Each structure stands twice: as structure tokens, then as C-alpha cells.
């Protein structure tokens, strides 16, 4: 079965994924930072009873961490991509547990910052993920006594989440905006008007200028879940239009050069034996910018594959055991080749 991020998604030329996170804590327990081991054990049992296994029946435990980080297969994302968790920085990994459905698009994470994090994730633009997450949240709220007050709403350890405890995240690939002078500043202002935030997938390092950004609501107080979703819809509509307009401008004004970069990018991804993350993500950006303007259709690659590769490279698992960077680049190149072979 294909995973959630490998599936078709709406507006997938711009939007990589839509994620809804809802956090909750249970009355009678301190928040995770102040919990004892015995409290954790008791909490885990309580949650285990309440979680509906017919929906999220698979269980992943962080105790399995490190079991395969020296093998080739672990390089391109196992759990980190599926659950959106950076496995390398987990605190108290022994207390992490994830209940998830078959494509890992729905999950309930225990003990990651708050007692419960309910996640619904979908490829492309899909605001309906909220209703999926809410549905699981409501079910748990009816079975467990949640930390809640009329004044503050749902109480959380992190005050940035107090209130609805709800975050909507859109991951967008906007190479044309990020490479055009002043466009990103304009976009930031627009995002700010909706009281949302935009930040790069990675501030620095190999993915520093990847053109991949995360857009999320700032407030969980003073605004209802409904309003958060509506603002997100309006904002994403603006961003998609803006990015497409700039791609058209780049592709039509400098058609020969852009077409050349497009062909080279595909060649690099398809035939390179060693490729670093920056090269890979830059090449994917060129594919993204010119794909819709490739009149000759010489390059045959679907949006699903471009998105899968982008997410594979972004969420690449960094093993705790140090790996030789050339080896890593060779493994990466081989993986990408294998994925692209299917389109030939």
C-alpha cells in the first residue's frame, strides 16, 4: 500500500502536503516535561484503552529506534517522513508511541511535547485533513477527561498551542517565488496579514535555499478552528496563484535557458551516481518550474514523483552513526534513479 505522501494530491505542483495537528493533555497528569516514569506508564495505558484501533491500529514504538540506521534502506526516510517527526531529536524516546493507520496519514502520537498529538496528513492541498484529525480528537475527548478551562480552552505545556491546540501546516514548494527578487518579502507580508507564519523547511545547510516552505497559523487563541481553516484556504489560494504566475513569467521570458536547466536537472537526477541534497533539491526545483511548459514532452515525470522525491530529500533520515558523505550521496543517487526508472 502506498503511503499518504505518495498519493495524488490537489494543486500538487505547488502544495506538497497539508497537515492538521491537534494537541491535547489529560487531567490528573503533569505535562510531559514534569512527568515521572510511573506517570508515563499509567498515561500510556489510559490512552491505549481510549485509542480506536479500528482507525489507527498500527503501533510504532520509539524503542525500535536505531535498529536499521546503518543499512542502505534507512537513508531515505522511514518513520521521520511518515510521521513528520525528526527522530534524531526526540526527548524521552522510551515514552514515545505512535498509533497510525495503514498509509500513516492518520496518527496519534503519545508523549511528544504534549500528552497527545493527533495528526492528519494528506498529499497536496487538502483542508479536509482537519475534519479527520478533529474526528479522532472528539472521540478521545469523549473518552478521556481533557485538560480544559473555559477561559483558556485546551491547556497545553507550550503556551503557543494553548486554546484550540490546533495547527494547520501547508508545505509548499515555491521555487519561482523564492528565486524572484522581492517576491518572498511580498509573500511574507501577505501571510502576516492573515496572522499566519511562513518559514523555510531548513534555515541553513544543504537545504537552506530549497524553495520549500512551511506555512502555518500563529494563533490558537482568539480564533476558532473554523476561522483558521478559512484563513488558510484564502492564503493558499493566493500563494498558488502567485507561484504559478511567476513560473509562467520565468518559463516564457527565458524559455531557452529555463528549458536547458530543466533538461539538465532531469539528466542529473536520472543518471548521476553521486548527488548531494542541495544538487537534488535544486534539480527538483527546475523540474517544478518548467514542467507545465515542456511543450516537447521529452522529460516524462509525474507530479507525484517530483513530490515524492522532494519530500524524500527534505525528510531524509540522518543516521546517528556517522556516514561517509560520499556513500550517502551514492545511496541517495541510486534511490532517485530507481524511482525515476519507472517513468522511462
Amino acid at each position, binding site marked *: 500500500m502506498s503511503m499518504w505522501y505518495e498519493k495524488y494530491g490537489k494543486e500538487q505542483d505547488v502544495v506538497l502536503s497539508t497537515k492538521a495537528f491537534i494537541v491535547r*493533555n489529560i*487531567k490528573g*497528569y*503533569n*505535562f510531559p*516535561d*514534569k512527568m515521572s516514569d510511573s506517570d508515563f506508564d499509567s498515561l500510556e495505558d489510559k490512552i491505549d484503552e481510549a485509542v*480506536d484501533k*479500528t*482507525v489507527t491500529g498500527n503501533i510504532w514504538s520509539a524503542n525500535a529506534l536505531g535498529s536499521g540506521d546503518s543499512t542502505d534502506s534507512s537513508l531515505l526516510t522511514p518513520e521521520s517522513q511518515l510521521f513528520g517527526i525528526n527522530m534524531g531529536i526526540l526527548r524521552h524516546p522510551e515514552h514515545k508511541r505512535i498509533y497510525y493507520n495503514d498509509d500513516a496519514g*492518520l496518527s496519534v502520537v503519545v508523549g511528544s511535547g504534549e500528552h497527545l498529538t493527533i495528526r492528519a496528513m494528506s498529499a497536496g492541498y487538502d483542508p479536509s485533513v482537519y*475534519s*479527520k484529525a*478533529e*474526528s*479522532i480528537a*472528539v*472521540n478521545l*475527548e*469523549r*473518552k478521556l477527561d*481533557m*485538560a*480544559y*478551562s*473555559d*477561559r*483558556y*480552552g*485546551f*491547556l497545553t*505545556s*507550550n*503556551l*503557543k498551542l*494553548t*486554546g*484550540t491546540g*490546533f495547527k494547520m501546516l501547508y508545505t509548499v514548494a515555491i521555487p519561482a517565488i523564492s528565486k524572484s527578487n522581492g517576491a518572498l518579502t511580498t509573500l511574507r507580508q501577505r501571510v502576516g496579514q492573515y*496572522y499566519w507564519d511562513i518559514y523555510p523547511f531548513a534555515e541553513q545547510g544543504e537545504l537552506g535555499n530549497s524553495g520549500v516552505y512551511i506555512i502555518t497559523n*500563529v*494563533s*490558537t*487563541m*482568539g*480564533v*476558532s*478552528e*473554523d*476561522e483558521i481553516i478559512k484563513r488558510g484556504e484564502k492564503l493558499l489560494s493566493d500563494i498558488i496563484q502567485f507561484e504559478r504566475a511567476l513560473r509562467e513569467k520565468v518559463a516564457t521570458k527565458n524559455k531557452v535557458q529555463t528549458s536547458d536547466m530543466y533538461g539538465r536537472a532531469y539528466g542529473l537526477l536520472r543518471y548521476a551516481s553521486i548527488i548531494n541534497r542541495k544538487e537534488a533539491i535544486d534539480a527538483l526545483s527546475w523540474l517544478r518550474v518548467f514542467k507545465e511548459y515542456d511543450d516537447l514532452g521529452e522529460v516524462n515525470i509525474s507530479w507525484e514523483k517530483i513530490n515524492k522525491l522532494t519530500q524524500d530529500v527534505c525528510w531524509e533520515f540522518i543516521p546517528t552513526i556517522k556516514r561517509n558523505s560520499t556513500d550517502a550521496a551514492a545511496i541517495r543517487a541510486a534511490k532517485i534513479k530507481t524511482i525515476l526508472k519507472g517513468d522511462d
Partner: protein
Amino acid sequence: MKCARCGAEVTNKIIKINGVIYCENCVKELGYDRFLKNPEELLGAAFSPLDEIASSFAKMAELDFGNSALTCPKCGMSLREFENKGIVGCIECYNTFGDYVTKEMFRQQGADEYAGRAPGQSLIAEDSLIGEDDSAEEKKDTSKADAKVDEEKKEKAEDKAADPAGDEKKLEKLSKADIGMLTDEELTEGIKLATKLENYQLAIRFRDELKGRKDGE
């Protein structure tokens, strides 16, 4: 009224230094007991020697961080720990660090009033809820929760119905006015309306303004 340094209830005498309220003990510990003396005594005293002024500056610095003694009785988190980490340790922390929590929330989110749904309530159609099975027990739980939610809704609706028309408008008008220009009567009315309409932030603003005026008299 609570001491901002130790959190103890101030019962005898309220001492305000730079706008912050302290109890007598804390003022003594900080070396500010001269604030407890009568003005006549102060007038009769000689000018402070320079080293005393220097030590005053040191104590002033301590005032900024003087709240470390305030600790959550349930999880043991101190105010300083909360300020450093930006997270709270348990539900009780919200009561213990009340105003600090509100301020921090406002700073981070630009709002401190809840506008979301209640536990167990859903924005989506009930029949599309994921994971609702048909077991009798669960149905019972669900119907209980539904009844609770309905009750809450009913209470809220009754509250609203009982509101004299225009309460919200009145409050909006008061909230937009220059607070310094409002009369004491208007402030009192504002506190009542804001509390009734659960706009506690505004109620606190009106209360503090009114209190400030009374303290100044």
C-alpha cells in the same frame, strides 16, 4: 492581592515599588524597609551614603528576577523556570503564574481569549466521525457528553437571552474609548459587562484603571 515576589497574600499593608506590589516581608528582605517608614522619619534622615545607593541598584536588579520564589505547588515549576523555558509543567501552573501566563500568551499569540470549540463538540457532522463504534457503553458515554454539551449550549443561550440588548455594543464602545477619559461609573459598568460577556482581559484593564485611581486619591 498577592505579592509579586513570593506570591503570598498581602493582608496588612500594600507596598507598591515601581508599580509592583510586595508584601512587608519581601520589602524587608530586599532592603527596602525604608518604604515602610513614615514620611516624617525619612525627612529627618541624612542623605544615603554612596555605597547604600550602589547596593540599591543591585537590589533593583534583583527586583527584576525576584519572582523565582514563586513555585507551582503541584509540579514544582518555578516562575523563573517558566520564563526561561516558555512552557508550563501542569494545569495548576496556569493558576500559580496567572498573570504571567496571560501576558506570555498574549505576547506569543496576540490574543488571550478562547474562541474554539468545547471538548467533545464537533464542527463536523456527527455521522462522519471517525472511530465511533456502536458499543452500548460508548453510546452511553457519547450521549452523556452530548447531553453535557447541549446543556452548556442551553446555558449559554439562556445567558445570552438574559443579556439586555446592546450589552455587547456598550462594551465595544467602552473598550474603544480612551480609558483615561472614562468616569468611575463607566469603568464599574465596564467591569460588570466585560465579566458578563467573558471578556476578562478587558475587565482586568477596567479594574486596574479604577484601582489605580482609588490608590492615587
